[in-house]
């Protein structure tokens, strides 16, 4: 072996073994986990569901492309945010609003903070919160499920024109419960044959996605489990005190956006605490807030604000709960 024939060696520091799971793969896993909820949305709300999700995704991708450059798209986070925005919008929403929501999600929810990993709030929820503030009527106009070929007139409203009113509108199960005191059958809630946002109605589809997500370890299991557990527990306790006024655990879990929010929004690693104990606090806080807003707030649904509020507390939780180092005494000493 002559030195001249040596292979050209590269030198970089240890370790020399590299991770098998990459960030784009984690994003892809979440997208795969969203597929059942997306499919259920299309099954119940038809072409409208498909169009709204596509419009929101296009808004996100175009914004990311123009603001951060094309290479930033390869981490798949913009596509994921887009799909998430679309799935938490009403199926009859004007498409331009969905696209605008996507723009706000990326521009104000992510890029303004410094890009992926630096944002304080869940970008998809920022997009939706903006839409809810800007277009409160469009965001609370609900249509009944009309099957896989459904196309709602509302989708085609032009910017700043009044949306063409759909022939039929209907309250969500939460709205019916809050304002009419009427309960929706749990079976309908579980399968998703009720009005609501595109991806949130079918508990079965969301749970299928959740199982995949947890099997792939794509999110911290404590976040969805803690949020659902806290909400169910608190709702059940209040229900036992006032059974005629407040719904119990099962209705709370299956109605509205709680399942979807817990599985796909609260579990966002960027905007939730890093340490396990912090994750429990974050999740429990979000679950409690959902129930408080639903039962005593002005709105029928509170998942979005609950998660956004806990997002804002996330850095504080992380700072306060540094992991106890090996061979260290109290966690407090860590500061």
């Amino acid at each position, binding site marked *: *072996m002559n030195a001249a024939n040596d292979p050209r060696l*590269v030198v970089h520091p240890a*370790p*020399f*073994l590299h991770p098998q799971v990459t960030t784009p793969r984690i994003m892809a896993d979440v997208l795969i986990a969203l597929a059942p909820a997306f499919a259920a949305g299309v099954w119940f709300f038809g072409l409208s569901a498909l169009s709204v999700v596509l419009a929101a995704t296009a808004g996100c991708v175009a914004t990311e492309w123009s603001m951060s450059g094309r290479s930033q798209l390869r981490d798949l986070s913009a596509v994921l945010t887009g799909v998430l925005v679309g799935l938490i919008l009403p199926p009859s929403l004007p498409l331009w609003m969905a696209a605008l929501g996507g723009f706000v999600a990326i521009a104000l929810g992510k890029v303004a903070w410094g890009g992926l990993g630096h944002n304080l709030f869940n970008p998809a929820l920022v997009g939706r919160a903006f839409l809810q503030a800007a277009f409160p009527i469009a965001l609370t106009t609900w249509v009944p499920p009309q099957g896989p070929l459904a196309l709602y007139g509302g989708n085609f409203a032009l910017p700043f024109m009044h949306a063409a009113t759909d022939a039929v509108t209907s309250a969500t199960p939460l709205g019916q419960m809050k304002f009419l005191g009427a309960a929706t059958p749990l079976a309908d809630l579980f399968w998703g044959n009720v009005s609501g946002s595109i991806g949130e109605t079918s508990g079965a589809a969301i749970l299928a996605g959740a199982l995949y997500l947890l099997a792939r370890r794509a999110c911290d299991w404590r976040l969805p489990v803690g949020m659902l557990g806290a909400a169910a527990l608190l709702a059940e306790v209040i229900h036992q005190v006032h059974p005629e006024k407040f719904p119990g655990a099962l209705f709370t879990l299956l109605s509205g956006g709680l399942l979807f929010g817990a599985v796909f929004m609260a579990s966002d690693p960027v905007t939730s605490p890093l340490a396990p104990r912090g994750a429990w606090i974050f999740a429990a806080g979000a679950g409690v807030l959902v129930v408080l807003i639903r039962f005593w707030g002005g709105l029928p649904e509170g998942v979005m604000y609950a998660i956004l509020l806990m997002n804002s507390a996330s850095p504080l939780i*992380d700072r306060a709960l540094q992991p106890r180092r*090996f061979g260290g005494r109290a966690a407090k000493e*860590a500061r």
Partner: protein
Amino acid sequence: MTLGHTFRHGIHPAEHKEATVGLPIERMPFVERYVLPLSQHTGAPSRPLVQVGERVTRGQMIAEAVGFISTALHASVDGRVVAIAPRSHPSGRLGPAIEIAAESSSPQRLPAGEALDPFGLSSESFVSELQRAGLVGLGGAAFPTHVKYRVPEGRRIERLLVNGCECEPFLTSDHRLMLERTADVVRGAAIAAHHLGAREVVFGVEENKPDAIAALQAAVAGHSAMRVVGLAVKYPQGAEKMLIRAVWGEEVPSGKLPLDLGIVVNNVATMAAIADWFDRRQPLVDRLVTVAGPGVRRPANLLVPLGTSVRSVLEHCGGLDQSTREVILGGPMMGTPLASLDVPIVKGTSGLLAFTDVEARLPAEYTCIKCGRCVEACPQFLNPSRLGRLARAGRFEEMVGYHATDCVECGSCSFACPSGIPIVQLIRVAKGALRERAAAAPPPPTPPPAPPSCHPLVSPESKK
């Protein structure tokens, strides 16, 4: 998994031990040139005892210890000293070394010495015997062994922990040693335990080496104070604090040593080397090296005379595949990359690995999404994600508050990171900068703010 028989956190890299685990120990033939760096151990470099031109024999002490944290060095071949000059060291730097041209006519046998009864020695002379033998920890850190055996006044050592984890992927030399030299490992442990006054001797071996566990169990059958503990396979179990946690469930307090719990941890190969010295008067002149990796044509577990060049070892193993891109001394998690094959095998070299384009490809880097995989991997329960961010921002002083100095640099965080962030390297750079700042006296009352470093691997200091 047997609960309590491992530590918390850590990672499960693919083991890759199959290529060499079945290969018996083979002796590396003698070659022409040997380069013996004077610094093959932690502590002060040894001082040469020979002159250029002098004839030396295999096993002869050619450099002596300088101070207590230092050790002796012996000629690994019969030959002539041709130079005492700076030579390439595996660390990548030049360092003083004794170069020996081997005598081709010599049979290269170690002189057979009269066995020395280690049990009759005072503990003081036992410690100096270990230093005279040039013994260092053979697990890779190369800390002079005798230092651990001088028990400070007022301290008692209750337990001796013999480390047979070999948790680094690819490496199998300790495994082969436990199989082929079981009696010497146990003999060395008995000698060591006697001088420490330890009442308990535990051999910690990962359960992926059932044959080694069985062999050790059979060998310790007659010793009431000795037992073998099988451990769930996990990296970095061979780190001494992790191993103590795995065996006894106790944590060595941050900033303290195993000694503070009355424990001494030594590698299995170090135990066999102790037996070599007292039973055969053989100092540390050879060491076991696993040669493996996809770039090596003929993997092997080799007994290599110290000072043999990496090039000679690879030639003996059939040469390198042309697709080789990385040559590593040690294991793939904590080893040292080589820029040249003309560096010697030293006392701390446990492995020689060659990786091809496939393994050497760096992962694409993305921003941290705070997924927490590094936190779940860190055996020291640190927050590598935050440490990495602070390091990249040049906020080194803040890192102290997050216990950067507790980092053992095992690399589990980098291995776990899906965003391909070189976290452990960022922490290493920061620790180095902090050490430099601490060394610069007198420290300013308020440290000047560090300019943010754009490049992850360039510390602000080096740019000034």
